[in-house]
Each structure stands twice: as structure tokens, then as C-alpha cells.
């Protein structure tokens, strides 16, 4: 049963709570696709994005509007009270008085937890610096459950595993399902030891390699992430690494038939557009699933369930 007041970090979710979100999301999917709903009529969601966001902000907005609710936006920080030096605590107290729930993205780690201490209404963390982004993890889990399976899953997390907050939260959540996880990254972007220790502490099998070719035949899910150019002081080294982690239809020739490829997007070069037309590509569905998953969270937090 889901009894949370705020959604701040995946670490605060039990497997049962995750399952209850995913089940509700499945029942709300028709509404995400356009079926009429008045579930949130008269309710207002406030979006406080102190950093740019496209998918997360728009999918929250879509989720609320498709359920019949309204949305208010902070707008560009330059024109608001933030530029006058107002604290986040005050902003949250004020806007919490206008809305039934707050969604916040902020460049500082821990900002969503701070917001939850001052907000009179539920707070959803939509990314706090290098910290957490739990709704991304929930939509990733929903995608895996819908398009592959969560039980006995073999998954490869690929790319920047050092700085990518998405893969840290996802690996943690998958450990609750006993997944078999392979970490594929260049040596300088390996997953931090503290997170690996956490996973093995939960009895999760974790393997590491820098060779994507080694794992492609065996996994059910390939979770790609972007390798950022600025992580490499040497541009030649960057090009070499970026090439070796690029997915093409040819590279997928020996993959399992039902392999699915996911990516939190935006992608740059790591998945060739030619892969989009293969049966393996799921990243656009994944992006869409953000809507029913966020619908589920909004209805649970604002109304205590559907």
C-alpha cells in the first residue's frame, strides 16, 4: 500500500510500493492516451523547474491535464521572485498555498527534501542536482515490466555509470527485484564503489565490463545512457569511446530476439537512428510511459489513490 506524502528518492520505496504505482499506472494508461477523465477537476499542480527540462516538465503537465486538472508554472527564474533572492523555503511555502502538489527540479542536491519540509502539500522530486530523479526510475521500471519483464531480468546498464543519476536509482530499484545486472562503461566512468557495494549487499549479482560486445547476446534489456564529451579531457579518446558504445542494427544481429533497448533521452550518437525501426527500440514508448506513471503518482499523492 502506498502511504507516502512526498516522492523524494527511490531509496524510500519498498518493492510493494513500486508495484502499487506500476499497477495503478497500467490502469491509467487509457487516460494517458486521451480517454477523457475528470479525476483531477478543480485540482492544481505547480511545476517549479529551476533548471531546463523538456520531457519531465511536459509529461507532468500532460499527466495533470489529461486527468482534468490544471497546471501552474514557475516560469523563467529571471522574472520571478527567485532573482530577488527569495529562498527556496519561502518560494515553496508560498506556491504550496496555491496548489495541491508541487513538482520541483533544482540544481542543488537535497533541494526536494528541503522543499518537503516547508511545503504544505505533497512534493515530487523531478531531479535535484546529481541527486535523485525517482519518477524517471519508476517510468523505467514500468517500461521494463510492460515491454520485457521484471522477474528474472538480465539487464545491461551502459555508458556513463559514474555521474548518471538515472542508472544509480535504477540499479538500486532493480536490486529489489533480484535482477542480474551487468555494468558496461569506459574505465573512467565506472559506477561508484559505494553504489556497487550497496547492490551486492542486497544480494544482487553485478558484473562489470567495458566491452559491450561481451554482453549483447545474453541480456533482455539494454539500458543506454549518454556519454558526455566534457568527461574526457582528450577529444580523441572521447571519439574512440563514443564509437565503441554506439548501437547500430548490425551490432544487434546477435542479440536476443526479444531484447529491448531503452534510453532516458535525449540521445546523441549512442543509438543510430536506423535502430528506431527495429523491433528492439523502446525508448519512445519509454518516454510516453512517463505520463501514466506520473498520473499514478499524482493521483496517489493528491487523492490517496485512483
Amino acid at each position, binding site marked *: 500500500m502506498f502511504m507516502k506524502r512526498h516522492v523524494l528518492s527511490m531509496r524510500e520505496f519498498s518493492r510493494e510500493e513500486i508495484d502499487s504505482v506500476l499497477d495503478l499506472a497500467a490502469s491509467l494508461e487509457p487516460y494517458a492516451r486521451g480517454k477523457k477523465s475528470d479525476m483531477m477537476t478543480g485540482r492544481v499542480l505547480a511545476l517549479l523547474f529551476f533548471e531546463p527540462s523538456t520531457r519531465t516538465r511536459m509529461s507532468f503537465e500532460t499527466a495533470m491535464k489529461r486527468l482534468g486538472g490544471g497546471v501552474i508554472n514557475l516560469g523563467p527564474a529571471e522574472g520571478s521572485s527567485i532573482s530577488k533572492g527569495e529562498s527556496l523555503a519561502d518560494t515553496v511555502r508560498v506556491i504550496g498555498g496555491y496548489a495541491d502538489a508541487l513538482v520541483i527540479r533544482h540544481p542543488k542536491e537535497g533541494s526536494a*527534501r528541503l522543499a518537503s519540509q516547508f511545503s504544505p502539500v505533497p512534493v515530487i522530486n523531478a531531479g535535484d542536482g546529481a541527486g535523485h530523479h525517482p519518477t524517471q526510475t519508476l517510468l523505467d521500471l514500468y517500461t521494463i515490466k510492460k515491454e520485457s519483464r521484471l522477474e528474472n531480468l538480465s539487464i545491461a546498464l551502459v555508458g556513463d555509470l559514474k555521474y548518471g543519476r538515472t542508472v544509480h536509482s535504477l540499479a538500486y530499484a532493480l536490486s529489489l527485484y533480484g535482477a542480474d545486472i551487468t555494468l558496461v562503461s569506459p574505465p573512467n566512468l565506472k559506477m561508484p564503489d559505494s553504489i556497487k557495494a550497496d547492490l551486492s549487499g542486497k544480494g544482487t549479482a553485478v558484473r562489470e565490463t567495458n566491452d559491450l560486445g561481451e554482453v549483447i547476446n545474453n541480456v533482455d534489456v539494454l539500458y543506454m545512457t549518454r556519454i558526455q564529451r566534457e568527461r574526457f579531457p582528450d577529444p580523441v579518446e572521447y571519439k574512440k569511446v563514443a564509437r565503441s558504445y554506439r548501437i547500430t542494427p548490425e551490432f544487434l544481429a546477435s542479440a536476443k530476439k526479444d531484447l529491448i533497448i531503452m534510453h532516458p533521452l535525449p540521445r546523441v550518437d549512442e543509438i543510430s537512428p536506423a535502430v528506431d525501426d527495429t523491433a528492439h527500440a523502446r525508448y519512445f514508448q519509454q518516454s510516453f510511459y512517463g505520463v501514466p506513471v506520473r498520473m499514478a503518482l499524482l493521483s496517489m499523492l493528491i487523492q490517496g489513490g485512483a
Partner: protein
Amino acid sequence: MSEDLKLDEKPKRDDEPKGQKVRPINNGTVIDHIAGGQALNVLKILGISGATDAMVSVVMNVDSRKLGRKDIVKVEDRELLEEEVNRIALIAPDASINIIRNCKVIEKRKVDLPDEIVGVVRCQNPNCISNTLEPIKSRMLVKAKNPVLLRCLYCEQPLTERIAEYLI
């Protein structure tokens, strides 16, 4: 200069070795078995600065059977509260507290870290919201006591080494 005092025992004025560095106190708190060199940080944790009215004695780097070298802090006419002294365990986990009243030790205990430390240690993550001008105090959850492992309530960054450098 060992201060292994027992309850109801008078501080050993006559038994103190000659050349005693700090006289025993009549009333107040003696913090003993502080790791050598940490006495000034203990004062910092207790919020005792040069502005204090209390009579404070600090002895540093005394020979100790248990610790090799130890520091001792005596605060006269002030009985420190349990929550005040427990924070000392952050940097001096072996410290012992003696409350002295009328020249007798009326209470003696070891320090024990609470589950959460508020407003004493700042987070080492420069990008943590607790290191900004927001109207909050730092909050550190105590995950392990020996060795000490703290975790910032806000950004979840762990802090285990060089804790003294992050005292507020």
C-alpha cells in the same frame, strides 16, 4: 594527572603528582579521555569560544595508558547536558564525562552519539542545499558510531573522515 574518577570520589587533590598542570574543580564538568589534540575541537562542538564567562581549563597531550596521549577539558560551574556532550563522540569517541558537585563526582558516563546531529557538522558536498543561505540547519544522520559514519539528511552524501574539518 589521570582523571579516572569514581562516583562519590573526591578528586585526588593530595594524590595528584607534583607539578600538577590544572587543579581539580569543585563544581562543573570534566571531559576526560579526549583523543590527543582534539580538545579545541571539543570546545568548538560545545560552543565554548573566547566569549564565554565560564572558567575553562584545557590540558593537551597528557600521557594516557589507554590512548597514548589524551586531552582534558574542565568547565567550571557548568554541568553540561547529555545532548551537549554526546556530540563530542563525533571526534572523541572514547571521551568520558564527569559531573562534579561539591568536589565529588556525582555522575560519570561515556559519550554516545545520538541518531541525528543537528547544526554541528556541515555537509562536505558544496552543491548540497544545506550549504546555501536557506533557513535550515545542517542535519547529519549517524549511520555508524565506530568509526563514525554520518550521512547528510538532505543530499545523502556520507562523511566519515576529517569530520573535525567540517565542524560549524
